[in-house]
């Protein structure tokens, strides 16, 4: 009840000296507003970057590689199509799609035209892994794979370079003298996960079984998308186990293979965020420290100005703790007012930042509620901490001297 009364007194004092109040609080207002805008921007930037990263790296995808032996300069193990079957038969219920991938740089020929293309050898499942869209024809089929047929699917630009404006479907092209029939063309500028459109435009795809006929068995890496993202951790282990079953361990007792998911990119983003937040915290602390000292200074002025009032209140029966509480509450309310104005400023600033950023990118963001609460708690803390000394000075005043202070 007394507290409510002290609060009322504080408000009347604070609003009576509006100009001084604003000048005192400018540090806190700018500090809190800046912190809120920065939190807003960092959160928004994080969402934006995560969005971009997730767009190009599906979080349910993993890659399996053979470990590299630096002394022999050879991989420690070579996966075969039998490994694929083994994984599919034993863990297939958790797998959305599984495909090998091996890339060659090859020159394709059609009549007089030549085009150097990034040729991928894989299985039909690859279409599901990279969500391939076709402009014409079809992707590699299971039959192509099983019968090792000499068919090829072309990237949009590959097809254009070789055939100009002619329809490429069912045309025969030559790779190293072997003849392949074009069965499909990728959509123009098709953007797949991981690879940008410019790369996809210049691709070609042939069945991996067919490739083995020409290039022999070679080491490939494995692409796998899980059905349930939460099982990623388990699947990373399980796939290695299944490979170990068939290949045994390497000389060092570890597996010959390694599996990665795409979370490492996301980790970088969150590390960046933590670094930014720590820096921000440092800047905020220094700002609030400086602002707090300003508040302490003005509270000392207020206490001196109101010496006579303090003497009177003591004469009327105020105890030391009554006086102390009154001035601490005044300091807290003063700082809280700064905090609230700072939060409002922060919202306005964030809005401006949002509008500005949206000129360039699709930037979404909100001021997080915790930032608002933290600002309130911090500013009251500043008021409490920097209010104690002036309040103590007021409480300790000799009532007689205070009463006769002019």
């Amino acid at each position, binding site marked *: 009840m007394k507290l409510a009364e002290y609060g009322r007194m504080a408000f*009347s004092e604070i609003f009576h000296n509006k100009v001084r109040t604003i000048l005192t609080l400018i540090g806190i207002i700018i500090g809190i507003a800046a912190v809120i805008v920065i939190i807003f921007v960092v959160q928004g930037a994080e969402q934006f970057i995560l969005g971009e990263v997730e767009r190009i790296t599906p979080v349910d995808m993993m890659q399996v590689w053979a470990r590299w032996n630096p002394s022999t300069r050879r991989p420690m193990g070579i996966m075969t199509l039998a490994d694929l079957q083994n994984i599919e038969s034993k863990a297939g219920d958790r797998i959305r799609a599984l495909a090998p991938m091996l890339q060659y740089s090859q020159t394709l020929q059609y009549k007089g035209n030549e085009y150097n293309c990034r040729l991928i050898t894989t299985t039909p499942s690859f279409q599901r892994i990279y969500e391939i869209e076709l402009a014409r024809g079809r992707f590699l089929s299971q039959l192509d794979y099983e019968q090792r047929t000499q068919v090829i699917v072309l990237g949009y630009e590959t097809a254009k370079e070789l055939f100009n404006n002619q329809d490429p479907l069912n045309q025969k092209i030559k790779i190293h003298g072997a003849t392949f029939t074009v069965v499909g063309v990728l959509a123009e500028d098709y953007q797949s996960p991981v690879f940008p459109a410019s790369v996809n435009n210049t691709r070609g795809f042939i069945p991996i079984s067919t490739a083995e006929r020409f290039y022999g068995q070679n080491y490939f890496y494995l692409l796998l998308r899980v059905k349930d993202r939460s099982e990623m951790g388990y699947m990373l282990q399980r796939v290695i186990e299944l490979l170990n079953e068939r290949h045994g361990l390497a000389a060092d007792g570890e597996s010959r293979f390694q599996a990665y998911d795409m979370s490492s990119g996301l980790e970088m983003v969150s590390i960046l965020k933590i670094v930014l937040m720590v820096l921000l915290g440092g800047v905020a602390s220094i700002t609030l420290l400086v602002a707090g000292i300003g508040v302490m200074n003005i509270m000392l002025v207020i206490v001196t100005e109101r010496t006579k009032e303090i003497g*009177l209140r*003591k*004469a*009327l*029966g*105020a*105890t*030391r703790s009554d006086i102390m509480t009154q001035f601490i509450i005044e300091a807290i309310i003063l700082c809280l007012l700064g905090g609230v104005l700072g939060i409002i400023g922060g919202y306005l600033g964030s809005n401006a930042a949002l509008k500005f950023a949206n000129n360039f990118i699709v930037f979404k963001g909100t001021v997080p509620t915790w930032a608002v609460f933290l600002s309130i708690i911090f500013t009251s803390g500043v008021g409490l901490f920097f209010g104690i000394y002036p309040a103590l000075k007021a409480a300790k005043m000799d009532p*007689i001297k205070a009463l006769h202070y002019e």
Partner: protein
Amino acid sequence: MIEVKKLSKIYGKGEIAVKALDHISFQVKTGEFVAIMGPSGSGKSTLMNILGCLDRPTEGIYILDQTDVSKMSEQELAKIRNLKVGFIFQTYNLLARLTALRNVEQPMIYKGIARKKRDQLAKQALAAVGLDDRIQHKPAELSGGQRQRVAIARALVNQPQIILADEPTGNLDSKSGEEILKILAGLNQQGITIVMVTHDQKVASQAHRIVYFQDGRIVREELTANGGDCGETG
């Protein structure tokens, strides 16, 4: 009611020590109206400060309402100031930002009275000094006499046993001064003990008894014409 025995107040130490009060002994009975006179620096104000529990004596005993307050803690003294003593100052000491009503409420805040009840009691106190039509005025909007009446209402509102008035008419014209003295006399008739410091013999003559101070000692006491009906009952 009030009894001081061999009360001394010494400021400073050793060579530069100043004896503001030098072994004062005197009594004020319940319901009595005492005026204190004397030149500046004679110890009147020091005595008033001690009587009002704003200060503690260096030596001696001060018994207020059968309690020895000379050894009380700061907090206990604050409570006595709040509940048993009402101060009236020469310069009124009103809070300029607050209305008459809010000024009168202040002592009740420290007593812990709820806001509604405070409003009610403050209005009563202001009515008792004839200011029912000025409760929302701020000190700057009131005359000197009216300000002092607000101060009296504030001194009264916690129903103290004793009112300490330090030159209550010192800043007022004679007409306003008389009104204030009339109010004080009225309060005294209701049983409130009053101790008043004044320079003005005419003002002092309103009391039952006048105590003369000089150099920290009581040099003379005399009963006034009003002395006959002095409250001997307490």
